[in-house]
């Protein structure tokens, strides 16, 4: 048998049908659903008289539109948002899929709820009408975002029409320096490859620095594979993965657990597998980074200065000029002199317990600088509960952060959590696009520790200065 990558192995195990030209019906093990990209798909089923083929493999949770303020039990004020969430309530009920409504403590961002509940397991195919489905690749699952037509296709047939991507290996060797996190890894990779560098590929992240990451950190890395253009990012499962999955509500138990484990242990790329593209970065070379522009590839170490448009080549010159103007930055300014108005810690990239612990470690006994709006939005109700149990919530509120309920919140600002024009935000989310966090809002992406540091000083800050 010819050597295979992890991606090849998962792919091969899910081919339900293959045409001569390679067009494949790929079987989908888990279909996650949220309220924004699904109403038209359910409507499509209704109009054609089709039903959900595998309700038991379909999991839904509202996250994008839900208010995260503590009074959310009183309902959603914005009518369109409310209609969208109500549509999901109704569609979930009508079709019998698994559902975590807003009132359920397990509700949260779909990419945090899936792993937390044990729906995401190694070797699975996982899709969702959401580009950050890549997150689930941290378990050694083939996970990617799909459009609404494909959501309808998966609901109806439990398959997707696919062509295979190419294999790309991203190796992070050695150890990370203090103050450097999973977020810095994933941003640095995108900074190096560009937002289109992964187009046409499935990325496998490997190397000592990746192995050393917790499951939470691995999810952060895979989450942003999409920002690098890749269809999916994945990491081979190991003891940490198995440990994380064990005992989760929907993970297998008893003999089935043993059988699963036996298969999961085979899920790694063969030594002599073929890679179409390889990128290697030394873990030691990665610094705490921030983005300066309006593309996730606009990444620089926090110790750098704002670049000039002329530093770039080709179409990027105009793009950089536009970015700098939008971001209100002048070339040559040290990044650490850029003052911020707002701090947002949360999202499917960095809304897990480990992220909150990292922020709390910096914030303990400190205060948010006067005049700075700071909020922490846990990724799920269970993350929130755990943070309260560990005493993190107290650290946040004492420091002056708002401590919110779970949801996507200011990651994309579909709910009332938004930036005003010109407002500058240190954010742990994944996209710094123009208007992403509110029309005219300016977003700098960074790790939770870096965002916490910025909250204290009121400017972009090298977290290492605050580490003792």
């Amino acid at each position: 048998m010819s050597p295979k990558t992890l991606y090849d192995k998962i792919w091969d195990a899910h081919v339900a049908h293959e045409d001569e030209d390679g067009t494949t019906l790929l079987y989908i093990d888990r279909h996650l659903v949220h309220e924004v990209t699904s109403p038209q798909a359910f409507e499509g089923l209704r109009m054609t008289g089709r039903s959900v083929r595998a309700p038991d493999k379909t999991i839904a949770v509202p996250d994008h539109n839900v208010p995260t303020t503590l009074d959310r039990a009183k309902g959603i004020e914005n009518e369109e948002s409310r209609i969208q969430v109500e549509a999901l309530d109704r569609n979930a009920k009508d079709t019998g899929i698994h559902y975590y409504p807003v009132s359920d403590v397990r509700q949260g961002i779909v990419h945090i709820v899936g792993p937390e509940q044990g729906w995401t397991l190694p070797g699975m195919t996982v899709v969702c009408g959401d580009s950050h489905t890549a997150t689930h690749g941290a378990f050694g699952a083939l996970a990617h975002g799909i459009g609404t037509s494909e959501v309808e296709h998966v609901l109806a047939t439990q398959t997707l029409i696919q062509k295979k991507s190419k294999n790309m290996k991203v190796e992070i060797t050695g150890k990370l320096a203090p103050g450097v996190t999973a977020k810095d890894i994933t941003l640095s990779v995108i900074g190096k490859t560009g937002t289109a560098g992964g187009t046409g590929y499935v990325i496998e992240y490997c190397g000592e620095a990746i192995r050393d990451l917790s499951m939470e950190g691995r999810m952060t890395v895979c989450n942003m594979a999409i920002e690098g253009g890749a269809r999916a990012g994945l990491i081979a499962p190991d003891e940490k993965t198995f440990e994380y999955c064990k005992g989760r509500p929907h993970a297998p138990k008893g003999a089935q657990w043993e059988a699963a484990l036996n298969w999961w242990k085979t899920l790694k790329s063969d030594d002599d597998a073929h890679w179409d593209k390889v990128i290697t970065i030394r873990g030691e070379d990665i610094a705490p980074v921030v983005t300066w522009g309006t593309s996730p590839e606009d990444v620089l170490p926090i110790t750098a200065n704002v670049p000039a448009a002329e530093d770039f080549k080709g179409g990027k010159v105009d793009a950089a000029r536009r970015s700098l103007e939008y971001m209100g930055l002048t070339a040559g300014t040290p990044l650490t002199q850029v003052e911020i108005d707002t701090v947002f810690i949360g999202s499917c990239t960095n809304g897990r317990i480990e992220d909150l612990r990292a922020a709390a470690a910096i914030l303990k006994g400190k205060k948010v600088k006067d005049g700075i709006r700071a909020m922490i939005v846990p990724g799920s109700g269970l993350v929130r509960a755990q943070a309260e149990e560990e005493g993190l919530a107290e650290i946040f509120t004492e420091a002056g952060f708002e401590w919110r309920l779970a949801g996507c919140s200011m990651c994309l600002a579909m709910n009332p959590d938004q930036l005003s024009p010109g407002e500058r935000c240190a954010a742990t989310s994944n996209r710094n696009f123009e208007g992403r966090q509110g029309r005219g809002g300016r977003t700098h992406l960074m790790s939770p520790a870096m965002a916490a540091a910025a909250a204290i000083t009121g400017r972009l800050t090298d977290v290492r200065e605050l580490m003792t």
Partner: protein
Amino acid sequence: MEKFEKLTGVAAPLDMINVDTDMIIPKNFLKTIKRSGLGVNLFDEMRYDDDRNEIPDFVLNKPAYRNAEILVAGDNFGCGSSREHAPWAIKDFGIRCVIAPSFADIFFNNCFKNGILPIPLPQEQVDLLMKDAEKGENARMTIDLENQVITTSDGEEITFEVDSFRKHCLMNGLDDIGLTMEKVGAIDSFESKAAQERPWV
């Protein structure tokens, strides 16, 4: 799905790289539960000012391009989210073909599901088409899907690649789900085999 065979129309030049889905259709318009009516909000933040007046400089607001059916753009078009609202808005505006050096994966897929033809071409050829598009409304381009040829307003021909299955679906307006349903036997047998091999799934 609407068929795509041959299209002759005005091409609008949008000479920007990394046009993301938040630009194509900002999140305030994702709250709809319908697929239609998004055309007026295509490129909303670039097209209108804070008072909802049109920004005259934006390409689709210029008289020459108000009825554009083709869009020529920079590298990595459609990057960002999976929102199919992006192709819905493009289609609703009246654009049926987008040409760029490269496209983001999910956006690229989503186009085909909505009767839009995305054509990736080498940078030099996109540059040439961009120049052609800049000539305005009298310069009409032709996209011939069957023969996989673009003809510029000067009669210059550029061939392009397209996946054969997708071409077949576009040309015949075929619905993917209907096609897959014909293979339900294969799905059934896959499911029973998988239930044996991986019963925990």
